[in-house]
């Protein structure tokens, strides 16, 4: 999806008034103030990942069969993340589906999950867990470096001090999980072909 490129009006005006100076000062002061605020409340990795998992739900469409049942956001391992998510999604809805966090200890309980996070502590059980999701529309997310190679759909990656992610589109397609182009737009890398063309 491209940004609207309709022309506004007229030529660009470059004549600045006498208020240029104070405007500049005001702008800089404002930016400085916000920069300070941002530094003071640097979110933790768990916070970021929890928010991402929650937000993924907004950019993914599951098959109709998924119904209007609560959307389960499952976390395998990493209890702290599970707690963060639990707090985050409490009372929240996505497309009319209430969000529910569920902590899993074993890979065999994944059947009802919409989003499944496999923490780095469960690295040994990744393949097993992914096998359990086979044939089910479950968005699998992990932060293991080879998560996508192992058949995962979204893998968190650290880029400088930002948490980013890559997408394995082929796996998404195979599990009938449709990922929005908006999400793909901000992915670091995308594996596989897109289902439909024309979108970035």
């Amino acid at each position, binding site marked *: *999806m*491209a*940004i*609207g*490129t*309709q*022309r*506004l*009006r*007229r*030529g*660009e*005006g*470059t*004549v*600045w*008034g*006498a*208020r*240029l100076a104070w*405007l*500049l000062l*005001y*702008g*800089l002061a*404002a*930016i400085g*103030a*916000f*920069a300070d*605020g*941002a530094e003071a*409340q640097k979110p933790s990795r768990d916070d*970021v990942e929890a*928010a*991402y998992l929650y*937000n993924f739900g*907004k*950019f993914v469409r599951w098959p109709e069969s998924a119904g209007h049942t609560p959307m389960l956001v499952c976390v395998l391992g990493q209890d702290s993340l599970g707690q963060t998510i639990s707090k985050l999604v409490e009372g929240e809805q*996505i*497309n009319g589906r209430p969000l529910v966090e569920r902590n899993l200890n074993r890979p065999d309980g994944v059947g009802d999950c919409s989003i499944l996070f496999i923490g780095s502590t469960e690295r040994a059980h990744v393949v097993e867990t992914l096998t359990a999701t086979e044939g089910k529309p479950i968005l699998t997310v992990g932060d293991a470096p080879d998560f996508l190679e192992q058949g995962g759909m979204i893998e968190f990656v650290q880029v400088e001090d*930002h*948490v*980013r*992610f890559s997408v394995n589109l082929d796996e998404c397609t195979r599990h009938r999980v449709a990922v*929005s182009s*908006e*999400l793909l*737009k*901000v992915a670091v890398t995308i594996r596989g072909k897109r289902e439909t063309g024309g979108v970035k």
Partner: protein
Amino acid sequence: MTARSRSISAKLMWMNVVVSATVLVLATIAYFSYDLISFRQNLIRNLRTAAQIVGTNSVSALLFDDQQSAATTLEALRNSPDVLAATLVTNDGSTFAEYRRSPNVPAPPVRAMADGSIDEDWVDGSHVLLAHRIVFQGKPAGTVYIAAQLNETGQRARQYLAIACGVLLICMAAGLLISATARRLVARPMVELAETARRVSRERDYSVRAAPHPDKDEITVLVEAFNEMLVQIQERDTALNRGREQLEARVQERTAALRAANRELEAFSYTVAHDLRGPLDAVQGMVYILGGLDREKREGDRKEILEHLRQATRNMASLIDDLLNLSRASTTAVKMNRVDLTAIVTRIAEDLQRAEPDRRVEFMIAQLPAIEADEGLIRVALDNLLRNAWKYTSRHESACIEFGAISRRGETLYYVRDDGAGFDPKLGDQLFQPFHRLHSRSQFPGTGIGLATVQRILARHRGRIWAEGAVEKGATFWFTLKSEAETAAA
């Protein structure tokens, strides 16, 4: 074309130009005001659209902390020339991404938005600022701030001014063309009319006519009225000339008459002098003879001489009396009274009879009603007429003198008729001229003034006199006086 036509065309042209310029200026002002308002509204609307698009496209970048993607999205604003700068701010107020059209452009100032509001716009100096809250799935994801330039007012005014000037030039050109047409339609007939009017006033030639105008408009009315006026002036002029010619003819006529009268007067004076001289010579002669006469001369001679003397002085006195009567007839004021003509005539007849009792003359005097006249004058007139009749019947043994009146066409004609010597009708006109006598003095004595006096007296009574007669067949003098009706009316 003359100077007048140029001035009228110029006026028409300037009228066109002024009207179009006024309309143009007013229309420009109106449109400029409208445009200024709509420009700002359009700008804000476009900024809002741009902010919405940017915001929608920045949601994933905000949610997944992808500043680079957000910057790429903002960069798309480069396609909107109005947008100077844009800032993407996260929910916690920190700047997420920025766009600047050029490096020296400051970032749009960030202003906290009211709760629940999606869009806010405000003007700051020459800038329009817009804040748009990005909402995704019912939750705010961040805010877009966009700054745009609003300094185009002056530039647009200049553009409008240029367009207005251009149109004004076209208007002036059109005005020239229109004035050329107007000159043909309006100015030229007026100029021709003015030219005609000038020629009329300069050459006093009222026979020229203004050329008729094909269209039926006020100018046509003017031309027709002007021509009508010329016709009237021409007619009046002709009448005036005719009157003047008549007047001149009359003056010449009068002058001639006056000259004749003058000559007559000279002749009259001469005649008066001559006729007075005659008896005076006689008196002088008699006096001389009387002086040289011896005492011894017979008494009889002296008596004869004295008789001659008496005769001569009587003639002189008679002439002088007649002249006095004539003069009085001309100058005395007429005083109208009831006058009994019959009584006057009877009295005169008696006087005449008494003076010459030997003559056998029968008077036939009609009884006439009294009339309005000046008694003294009318008595003189009747006395002259009767004395005349008496005199010219003196050579007949018996005579008849008649006084009466007949009525003809409402007018009373009086007459004095005798059966005396009469006169040659061909010379009848001379009867009433002073000193003109149709008979020699030896035949009938007289001064030749009597009838002239009568005519004058009757003229004073607004009457007239004429005579009928033939040699030895008597004469009839007819006369009228102012009618009773006229007298009553007067």
